[in-house]
């Protein structure tokens, strides 16, 4: 009996060393740490992009004089250029930690649908606004109302609600994990586009 056990242990150890980095086929339940990590990745990318676009830093640092101001401060005479990047990072970091903690308390399906809702809303709102502005500039009649941020927001809200409500459980589950890459890449496209003035001079 003892020998059998020893042999088994040996085989187990051999298997363990041989397959240490080989993936297992069993579908794994994502732990709370996983929920926190994934939600953090999605939320951080989303918040960082939005805060940068709106220029809402937690604080402004003036490197020439070593001064720190709360929230966003415009450049002041004799104080050199202000830095907002640290403020965006801090606010997105803190916000993402809070949101990720809340995410660990939510039922899984709710979490998936809320994440999909937020991501779709973040994508549709600027898309509808850009589309509305484009149409308003092209048509011959007065269509200035299409440039309204609130009209675009309302349409995006309806679209995001519909998509997150009607999407199947498997689809939102898959989309939740995939958002981990979709959101940062989408964010980088938006952030890169907003830098176009540097490349078109």
């Amino acid at each position, binding site marked *: 009996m003892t020998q059998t056990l020893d042999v088994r242990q040996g085989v187990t150890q051999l298997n363990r060393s041989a397959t*240490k980095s080989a993936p297992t086929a*069993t579908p794994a339940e994502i732990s709370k740490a996983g929920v926190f990590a994934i939600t953090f990745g999605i939320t951080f990318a989303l918040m*960082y992009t939005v805060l940068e676009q709106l220029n809402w830093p937690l604080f402004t640092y003036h490197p020439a004089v070593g001064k720190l101001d709360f929230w966003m401060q415009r450049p002041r005479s004799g104080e050199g250029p202000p830095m907002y990047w640290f403020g965006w990072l801090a606010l997105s970091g803190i916000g993402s930690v809070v949101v990720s903690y809340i995410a660990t308390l939510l039922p899984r399906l709710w979490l998936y649908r809320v994440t999909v809702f937020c991501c779709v809303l973040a994508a549709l709102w600027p898309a509808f606004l850009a589309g509305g502005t484009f149409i308003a500039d092209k048509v011959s009649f007065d269509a200035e109302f299409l440039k309204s941020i609130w009209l675009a927001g309302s349409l995006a809200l309806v679209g995001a609600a519909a998509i997150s409500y009607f999407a199947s459980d498997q689809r939102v589950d898959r989309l939740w994990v995939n958002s981990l*890459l979709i959101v940062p890449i989408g964010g980088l496209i938006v952030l890169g586009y907003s830098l176009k003035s540097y490349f078109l001079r």
Partner: protein
Amino acid sequence: MDAITDVFFDYISVRTFWRVLQFVHFTMAITLLALVTLQTAAVLMPVQQAAGNFITRVRAAPAAAYVKPIVILYIPTFLLGAWIYIKYRTYVRIPMEQFGHWWTVGTFEFKEHIVSMGMGLLPAYWYFWRQPLTEQHDTIRKWLVVFLAISVWYSFLVGHVANDFRGVGA
């Protein structure tokens, strides 16, 4: 931040301080670059056996082995870069704008975004590479590696170009 640097300035010159800081940042970045490149090769072109030439042996290395060093190195490299960025903003970027090097300014601005996104993804990257690895998350695991590799390579190249214009310790 000024209080920290003032302590060093009692012993070394301002120029030497920033040079040392940038050299440490550079060394860490090179190591990180090597690690993410090796992991990307192991993930995108895996081979079962370590036989053959150097490239094949690199591809056969277990990709999971790189995760801890990458996470451990990415964070201080990012923080050190953030510290140097303060000096860059006044000492390098202003002359860069005065000389009209807008492409360098723009690409460096994008660097701050891409490394931030990489920082945000680090917890998930660490989570998906924990043992035992699940086949279910193979794709996301692979693309997280690629994303981090792109962010590190981009940052390294852009940082190098900016340093060619004017280093913070120049």
